[in-house]
């Protein structure tokens, strides 16, 4: 690999600043302080040795294990002859070739969602779409939208509604009543212990009535969304759904799953929509590719579950269950996850179809470990989850 040719008038510190900007665009935290440290670090090593520079900048700029793993590719992407194009910088993680349209596809999706216009969807065959009807009742149209299969949803309004439903669900999930009771100003139950204690002051007459109740305890949500080839038609709405979940509560975490597992909560929370799109599109390498649910669940268990999943967590998996890994793996990993005491909800878009049987072997292996297995092919079916989730 040859070194990238920079314009001659660029000084070293300008190039370094460019590198920091490159890292920033790819999701690493790098800015002024890192730039300063990096230049100081170059002074402490042999700056003409490529490998030394790589190791030094790595320790300066990678602030976490994710950045640590991605750094080598990013370094090559900027300093070596790949040129400065972001798209090419990170894609060779596992040596597989990414179809070039994946990036633009997700960007299109996200931009469509943020009001950029209506991208065309090839299989737009839903019955709820009544374009051009000027005098129709708005309500009935919304009704139709809610019942239409999610594959047909394309317009920004529809996606916004998906988000709204997601927020409702997130809210209904969030609070779970504790089993313990606590003293409270108002409450359904009398707190006899305190009443008895206070009555001492009144010569044994229970004058003050104190109460207690079961307080609400927050629930954490971890959502894992499958965006493999078989799920692409649903991916847009589910992304909106994830965004809704994530924005409703700062403790929620969201992941994408295809051949790899990618954490997208921070990207979804990004206020700058354009930057969020950039970040997401970079993370979604492999979007629309194969599925490795089992292996990814394992990665989740190994890497993230320890910090995120407790007895107060609901893990929501959005997937059709078509997996290229052996089905035992899914079963085993779900069982392992379950041992952390969490609830597992599996939303399967195929379940809403008439005559669907969970015959996909992965799905069949997963079933015994699920607390709730529900359809997710229309907005109505998503909204219908609320009562189930509240009871959990």
């Amino acid at each position, binding site marked *: 690999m040859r070194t990238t040719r920079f314009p001659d008038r660029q000084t070293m510190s300008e190039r370094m600043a460019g590198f920091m900007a490159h890292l920033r665009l790819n999701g690493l*935290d790098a800015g002024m302080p890192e730039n300063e440290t990096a230049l100081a*670090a170059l002074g402490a090593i042999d700056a003409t040795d490529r490998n*030394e520079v790589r*190791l030094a900048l790595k*320790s300066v700029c990678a602030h*976490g294990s994710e950045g*640590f793993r991605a750094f080598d590719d990013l370094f090559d992407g900027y300093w070596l002859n790949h040129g400065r194009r972001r798209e090419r910088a990170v894609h060779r993680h596992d040596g597989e070739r990414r179809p070039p349209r994946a990036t633009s596809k997700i960007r299109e999706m996200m931009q469509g969602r943020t009001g950029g216009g209506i991208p065309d969807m090839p299989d737009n065959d839903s019955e709820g779409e009544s374009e051009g009807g000027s005098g129709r009742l708005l309500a009935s149209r919304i009704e139709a939208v809610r019942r239409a299969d999610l594959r047909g949803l394309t317009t920004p309004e529809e996606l916004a509604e998906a988000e709204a439903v997601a927020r409702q669900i997130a809210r209904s999930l969030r609070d779970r009543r504790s089993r313990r009771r606590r003293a409270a100003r108002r409450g359904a139950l009398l707190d006899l212990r305190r009443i008895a204690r206070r009555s001492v002051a009144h010569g044994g007459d229970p004058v003050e009535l104190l109460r207690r109740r079961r307080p609400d305890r927050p629930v954490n949500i971890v959502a894992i969304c499958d965006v493999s080839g078989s799920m692409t038609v649903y991916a847009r709405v589910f992304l909106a759904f994830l965004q809704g979940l994530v924005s409703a509560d700062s403790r929620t975490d969201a992941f994408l799953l295809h051949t790899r597992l990618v954490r997208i909560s921070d990207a979804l929370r990004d206020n700058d929509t354009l930057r969020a799109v950039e970040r997401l599109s970079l993370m979604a390498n492999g979007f629309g590719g194969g599925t490795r649910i089992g292996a990814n669940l394992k990665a989740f268990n190994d890497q993230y579950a*320890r*910090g995120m999943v407790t007895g107060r967590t609901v893990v929501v998996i959005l997937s059709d269950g078509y997996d290229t890994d052996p089905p035992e793996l899914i079963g*085993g990993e779900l069982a392992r996850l379950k041992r952390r005491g969490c609830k597992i909800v599996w939303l399967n878009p195929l379940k809403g179809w008439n005559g669907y049987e969970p015959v996909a072997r992965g799905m069949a292996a997963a079933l015994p470990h699920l607390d709730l297995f529900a359809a997710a092919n229309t907005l109505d079916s998503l909204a219908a989850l609320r009562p189930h989730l509240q009871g959990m």
Partner: protein
Amino acid sequence: MSWKTLKDELAKHGYVAADDLAMALHLAVTIGKPLLLEGAAGVGKTQLAKTLAELFDTRLIRLQCYEGLDAASAIYEWNYQRQLLSIRAATASGAPGEDIEDRIFSEKYLLARPLLEAILQDKAPVLLLDEVDRADEEFEAYLLELLSDFQVTIPELGTITARTRPHVILTSNGTRDLSDALRRRCLYSYVDYPDRATELSILAARQPGIEARLCEQIVGVVQALRKEDLEKKPGVAEMLDWAAAIAGLGINDLTDDPVELQATLVCLLKTQADRAAVPIEVQQRLVGKAA
């Protein structure tokens, strides 16, 4: 000292570091920044700090973090008993109040805890903040001032600046995500399980008495075990324990006595489920492959 010499020096003291780790440590020492080490348990994060202290021939000041760790037990505390005694003695002799106040809030009455102690040393010590992810987020905030400016502010005394910059090493096991502010003040390195060659040299450095063929077998089995589906993968520390156990029992070849070997696996497998996952047949298969 270049990073290569540092790496060699560490190796002489029995710590075999990977390239990126040696470089991160070298930079941390030369440009005076804290070093944050992450990685699974038992890959030698804490050991690195100990070895570094040995290498520089300086003190190792260690602060083991835990949930609920507060400033009083990490930075400083006033010696209240002495202060009270001093006040009693002074009022008895009729000294004016301001004098007493000046006296009892002087350094003499200050109990330095690890963090303050580290910046008061005349020779730069190695300050190890172990498992910093276990401490609360509030504690991280205390750390920020110390790590960026190497100073501690005591309201009654003013700001105490470091006499020498300690070499700070933080370790984390990923119990919780550390804040970005803390991460950005540190150099970072992720310590992974060593590869076969590195692990062999670690074993040779720490347990020089074991012959080469047995070393190969031991490392081979441990490396294979890490690929198995275990809840808690054996780290380097466990590997060394196991090697010591095998050497202590006088086993010369792992294939000799499967039953005895199975009993020694307690050094490597630390949960009931993992013990059950490696029955004697699996152990035989692993040993067979390694031999």
